[in-house]
């Protein structure tokens, strides 16, 4: 059995400094910028504009 030289974090430690990846946040911001909601006679349509 090979030795493990890395310290395994406890579940409590794992919860510290947890943040989503920058790519995920960037995706959300880009999604938001691309999304346009069109109101057509009271019905709202979402359109992704590139």
């Amino acid at each position, binding site marked *: 059995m090979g030795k493990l030289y890395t310290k395994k974090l406890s*579940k409590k430690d*794992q*919860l510290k400094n*947890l*943040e*989503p*990846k920058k790519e*995920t*946040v960037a*995706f*959300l*911001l880009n*999604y*938001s*910028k691309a*999304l346009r*909601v069109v109101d057509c006679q009271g019905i*709202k349509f*979402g359109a992704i504009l590139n």
Partner: protein
Amino acid sequence: MNNVEITDAVLVRKYMDGSEAALSKLITRHQHRIYSFIFSKVFDRDVAEDIFQDTFIKVINTLKRGKYNEEGKFLPWVMRIAHNLVIDHFRRNKRMPKFDNSGDFNIFSVLSDSDLNIETQIIKDQIENDVKELIKELPEDQLEVLTMRIYKDMSFKEISERTGVSINTALGRMRYALINLRKIIEKHNLVLTN
């Protein structure tokens, strides 16, 4: 004197009025709490990432469509969305459980597929057909005993009763049948292994 933090309500209003920077501020402000909450339920970075993304997609869609009712409770509202998506995730996995085989323990080291695959099944059929052909080469009395014992699963007592010989004779014929079969196989250099 610009240290006063803009409230969530103001940022939401600004975002609904078209300010993308407001959304960026809202995400930056709450990402840790929301992501930690999701991770504390699912304990998987990738799944938490997916649920976090889906949560904010719902938030963005709702705000852009103007369906959000501001009651000064932006974070609890987002947390509720995240909570519902976590429940959806577990419901989905309950219907279709996923086994995570990424750890030290490999489930396939204890589980095996006992069924033959197509190739080994074909080989097995070929060998059985070859053996049937070889048996036909045996003398009649040995062929009779071997067929009854192996293919009809009869006991030597039943064989002796059916053929009218003693049990010892039946045993002897079976023994010679096997010896002769081996000789035929060696003579023709046949390989009968799977």
